[in-house]
């Protein structure tokens, strides 16, 4: 019925979804960063497993990039930024944890309902990869919209990117262009994040986006 390979792929991908949920209920800054490290590690393992199953060695590079950049470099940089800028350690939420979790479950079911029938023909591995990838993307979006804090919004975006990388890994044989784009987005995201966080710090005491909201220009 189920091969061992499929089970492991399923395990890793759903682990990623679980990590996305864990990201949602964190209420402290360092907690968010730690769970993001877990997220990145799980992604690396999932992509590496896909590389093994599909016999696609270029995906190992993607896994390594995910591990090095998103699992190590970016969290370390974020730690430094949080500490140096002395950012508010608490994360304010727009919606309560309970409602956020329920919406998250709803999004996972939506992803299953949408992706499963459509990708069924593509085979077991691709299909379940894409279902979970869309779930992770949607959960990342949820995190971005329910957080007031700029750092956690950025982490939400990076978890969203992780979901995309999972999807790209699931699509069999997608050429090296994917790897380039993936690495590219990681690099640029990092630069922009860094630049932004420093610029924001210069102007505000906290990286609270609600404080930014005061300057919402659209009234003019």
């Amino acid at each position: 019925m189920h091969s061992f390979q499929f089970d492991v792929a399923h395990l890793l991908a759903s682990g990623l979804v679980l990590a996305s949920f864990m990201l949602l209920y964190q209420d402290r800054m360092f907690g968010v960063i730690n769970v993001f490290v877990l997220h990145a590690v799980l992604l690396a393992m999932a992509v590496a497993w896909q590389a093994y199953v599909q016999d696609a060695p270029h995906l190992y590079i993607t896994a390594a990039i995910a591990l090095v950049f998103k699992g190590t470099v970016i969290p370390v940089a974020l730690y430094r930024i949080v500490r140096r800028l002395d950012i508010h350690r608490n994360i304010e939420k727009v919606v309560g944890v309970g409602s956020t979790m329920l919406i998250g479950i709803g999004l996972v079911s939506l992803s299953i309902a949408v992706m499963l029938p459509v990708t069924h023909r593509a085979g077991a591995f691709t299909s379940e990869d894409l279902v979970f990838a869309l779930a992770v993307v949607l959960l990342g979006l949820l995190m971005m919209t329910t957080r007031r804090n700029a750092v956690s919004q950025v982490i939400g975006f990076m978890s969203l990117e992780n979901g995309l990388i999972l999807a790209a890994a699931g699509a069999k044989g997608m050429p090296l262009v994917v790897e380039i784009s993936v690495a590219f987005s990681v690099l640029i995201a990092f630069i922009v994040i860094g630049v932004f966080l420093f610029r924001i710090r210069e102007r505000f005491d906290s990286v609270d986006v609600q404080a930014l909201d005061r300057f919402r220009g659209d009234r003019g």
Partner: protein
Amino acid sequence: MGIAVALIVQGGQMMLVLLLAPLLTGLVRKIKARLLRRQGPSVIQPYRDLLRLLRKEVVLAQTASPVFRAAPYVIFAAIWVAAALVPTFATGLMFSWSADLIAIVALLGTARFMLALAGLDVGTSFGGIGSSREMMIASLAEPAMLMVVFTLSLVAQTTQLSSIARFMLEHSVGLRVSLAMAVVALLMVAIAENARIPVDNPATHLELTMVHEAMVLEYSGRHLAMIELGAALKLLLYVSLIGCLFLPWGLARAGDDPSAYLLAILLYLAKLAAGGGLLAVFETSIAKMRVFRVPEFLGAALMLGLLAALLLFVSKSF
């Protein structure tokens, strides 16, 4: 001949759970005490406590109604039946056709309901606090439990506990993420239902931290004995449940020879001891949560259960 043996085995299970329950509670207390570098009461102390309580006079408040007097019996009966239905050392017992997981959840729910009513009955404030907190916990724990039940039934294609246990035993289930999530959710629910740290402290009598104890504060004599025994049975029930569902090795099947049954009983005792030991270690290493955090804890269990059920749909379609 076959029916008589089956009846004896089934009856044996019923008595076994009844007799083992206080022993399990005693074991947990002993290990906790030892971990805290105390001697602690002897392992058979709960038996002594029960006998002592049975001999004592029942003192009833003037405001107590018939509900208050009937509640302990109903509670005890419901929990005993539920505990007796859970396969401890064998599947396919005589009454196992009635051992539907949902029925077990309903029985436990009945017991809880009666307990909450009893807490409210006398009209003291402690009872009220206990009952309201218990209901809050139940409102989250029960859906979580049901989600676990759904997950398991989806895997095994049945809700009958005996069949599920046999399914787990016989089929190679593989690395199922849903089952991993389900067991974690079940553990969290078990802790909440049995009034263990971090949800409730079974050894406390402080208003701030009581849930279960608050409800039974007014009971004495044989009523209290029945409720205590019921609580012990509930703990045994949950440990056996987790054992037969997720660690089903050694369960004897209907039609096995007596040596298999003997081995199964020994393994079952070992599982109980291990479960009790782990529970004691866990309780000692963690602090009690504040009451308003309990919904978060149970909410996590509910989410895990929901997710486990959802994820099954993904893997089941292949």
